[in-house]
């Protein structure tokens, strides 16, 4: 803690910091590159759709039964029983997973019975998961609806709680996260199942968590910004970002840890299935979400904000003042990252009125 704590303190005071906003072009570039890669990956390789999207059945034997047949043999049996291609997997615990695509739910009982005979396993020890051909589509369609509804609602909400610029920036960051997640799925070739779709939808709320935390301090910082001439909006944004960096990192790590636990169990022990699908897409999406809230969302807000006349005027004043100070030979912090102030954003050296923390009386006095 101590080390990180000190770094946290320095970040908080702005003694050290990374110029996220200043270097935004670089990160926009990187993101655009990643997004293009994702889209190209999606276009070229496409998504590997799970059995839920074409219909079929997954049979899993209980781990209590012992299946002696080899994978190849089981596969031949399955193909013979169903007349369709079959994917056979032996799972870590000795159970067998047989996935047959393209069969009807009505055919499956027959196939199940035949498999039971071939594998020498009682039929009731075989778990069956049958999916009609339109099921995946139903789930996906509802997911799209949900996605659209959520995006509209969240943009409205953020526009009310913060402002529309932040809402738009958050939305772009969100789309960015989803694109990256889908891209990873296309490129790596993970199977897309309804579980994946659930995970993807959950990212929505989650990826915004970090963004909201940063935006909240951004809002505070931006409150009386025009009354001072020390920082431009971008600089203030950058300080907010650095000030909440530790928080963002911590919340992301803490959010990822349980998902990692799920992934480990889902992938490592259960082999496959819904846990794995949900946690995998959550993991990818959360990581992308943490990245985008820091590197994309906030710099975007700064970009939008700097277009406001008030902020343009502020920037002019700030620069003019700095030039004047430089002319006088005063030492001036020309960059937020080197400024050693105690608070990241709410000091007002000129007016010395009030901090932004809703504290009625907290005069600051002159600072220099």
């Amino acid at each position, binding site marked *: *803690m101590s080390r990180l*704590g*000190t770094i*946290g*303190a320095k970040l*908080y005071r702005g003694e050290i910091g990374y110029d996220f906003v200043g270097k935004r072009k670089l990160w926009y570039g990187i993101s655009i590159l990643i997004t293009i890669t994702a889209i190209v990956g999606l276009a070229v390789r496409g998504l590997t759709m799970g059995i839920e999207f074409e219909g079929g059945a997954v049979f899993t034997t*209980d781990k209590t039964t012992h299946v002696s047949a080899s994978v190849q043999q089981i596969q031949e049996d399955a193909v013979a029983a169903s007349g369709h291609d079959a994917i056979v997997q032996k799972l870590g615990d000795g159970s067998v997973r047989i996935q047959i695509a393209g069969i009807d739910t009505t055919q*499956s*009982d027959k196939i199940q019975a035949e498999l039971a005979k071939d594998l020498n396993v009682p039929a009731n020890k*075989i*778990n069956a*998961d*049958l999916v*009609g051909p*339109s099921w995946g589509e139903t*789930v996906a369609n509802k997911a799209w609806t949900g996605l659209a509804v959520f995006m509209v609602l*969240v943009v409205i*909400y953020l526009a*009310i*709680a913060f402002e529309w610029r932040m809402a738009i920036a958050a939305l772009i960051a969100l789309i960015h996260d989803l694109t990256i997640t889908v891209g990873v799925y296309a490129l790596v070739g993970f199977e897309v199942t*309804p579980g994946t*779709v*659930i995970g993807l*939808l959950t990212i929505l*709320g*989650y990826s*915004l*968590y970090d963004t*909201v*935390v940063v935006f*909240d301090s951004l809002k505070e910082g931006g409150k009386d910004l025009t009354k001072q001439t020390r920082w431009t909006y971008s600089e203030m944004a950058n300080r907010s970002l650095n000030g909440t960096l530790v*928080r963002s990192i*911590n*919340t992301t790590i803490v*959010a990822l*840890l*349980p*998902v*990692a*636990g799920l992934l*480990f*169990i889902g992938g490592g*022990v*259960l082999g496959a299935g*819904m*846990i794995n699908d*949900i*946690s995998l897409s*959550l993991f990818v999406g959360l990581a992308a979400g943490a990245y985008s809230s820091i590197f994309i969302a906030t710099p975007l807000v700064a970009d939008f904000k700097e277009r406001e006349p008030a902020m343009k005027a502020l920037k002019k004043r700030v620069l003019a003042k700095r030039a004047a100070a430089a002319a006088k030979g005063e030492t001036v912090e020309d960059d937020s990252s080197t400024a*050693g102030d*105690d608070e990241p954003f709410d000091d007002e050296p000129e007016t010395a009125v009030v901090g932004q*923390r*809703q*504290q*009625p009386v*907290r*005069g*600051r006095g002159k*600072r*220099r």
Partner: protein
Amino acid sequence: MAAPNKGRRPAGAPGKPGRSLLLILIAMVALGGGMFLGGHTTPRLGIDLAGGTSITLKAVPQPGKQNAINKTNMDTAVSIIDRRVNGMGVSEAEVQTQGNDNIIVNIPKGTNSKEARDQVGTTAQLYFRQVLTEAAGSPTANPSATPSPSATPSGKSTAKSTGSATPSPTGSSTPQGRAVTDGLKADATPTPSATPTPSASSSASAADAATAAKLQKDFTALDCSSAAARTAAGKGALPTDPIVACSQDGSAKYVLGPAELSGTDVDSAKAAISQQTAAWVVNMDFTGKGSKKFQTTTTKLSKATSPQNQFAIVLDGLVQSAPSVSTTLSGSAEISGSFDQKSAQSLANVLSYGALPLTFHEETATTVSAALGGQQLEAGLIAGAIGLALVIIYLVAYYRGLAAIAILSLAVSGILTYEIMTLLGPGIGFALNLPAVCGAIVAIGITADSFIVYFERVRDEIRHGRTLRPAVERAWPRARRTILVSDFVSFLAAAVLYIVTVGKVQGFAFTLGLTTLLDVVVVFLFTKPVMTLMARTKFFSSGHPWSGLDPKRLGAKPPLRRTRSAASAPTDPKEA
């Protein structure tokens, strides 16, 4: 909700930590008490964890009737499927709608899943048949136990524009004929030959002694006391054959003639309060074709004597009601009797089902053996334990003493989640399935995130050189706002997910939404008060190195303990 909230009380006031803690303690004890009183101490497990079969059906409207998928129709379908599944002798099978057009059927382990799926998959068969003989439900039953659902049924014409009641001769000279064949013959003759009713001609010709004898034998042997036997009785019979059948509740058994009308002849049916008698009745309207058939049938029935003047409404081989007819009816009819609101609606449901312009497709069917269910539950719990352990390790490593508060808060949140989930089992039929377990695990992160937001705020205040007590209070309003905004966004995502999705996804969304709400409750009523109390202890307020709030380690610059004064001017020395 989360608009910047200028705290009701001054930011610096510590509030009343004791009261909040007491409140949450009472809530925990009350929920726990309710749990034990209700007799359910573990959450109800879903099919994928407990074993069983889960079927998702999707409603498909008949061509040209796209708006047939509506709540009324879906509810009718659910109640019919529910009857049918539970009629197999399965207990605790549950049928519910999900989303707009899906019906989920969950059948616990121990049932023949294949038979269950067959039952669910077939279309409901609703027929109107003439009652030929009626008797008490079981071979040994005493005569007093014979109230059928319509104890004093009487067919009356309703004064609707479509319906025209023609007075019919009562006390007709129809031969008494207790014997089945006699009844059939007697009925067949007066039927106008022009009617399309297949029963008339076919039964008349097929009324040979062998069939009659067999029917009579079946009828005598029929025992309606068990649900399975009731369902088995009327199974597999063709609509054109006479059958034996039990009443829905097993209190009566019948020999029934061939089907006169089928469910598709019913246009609509509604439960209503009769304007004349102020009692519950069921109004039904027939389709054009149905009206003609019904007219024919009632003409015939009204001339017969009891019990042959009754027509039985038979759903899937079970007699739902057997009202008698006294006049000829056509386009619409009113069934009166000793109905209460529930039984009237139930009968109306049955009648409407045949008219539902919906068919159901089996979208998914999952059969999970108890062993796999247990295995999945175990895996989920292990995953949760791993996730929780990782979070705790991280929190302790980073926040030291503060982690204790976080862990306690997580525990409170966990207990509340568990209690509410358990209570919701019997309450609203919530069942913990695998995605719900995933949701709970993912929620560990969301909940812990709130603590982090608060802790970091407190640390920021300490970095300003504040002592702990004011730091805790000053950090709260700002942390509170952040927590509310982000929890609201999470909740919004969960709510949207819950509303628009189907299947197991709902379990996931539900847990996520529930834990997000509880997160707010816990942070407000537990974490914050505990922080306030903790700030009074020496261990934390002195900034013990293990407290996680050591000003030195946090990089606060001296003077460390200034007296707190509102206008302490040059706050922090800075800018060396």
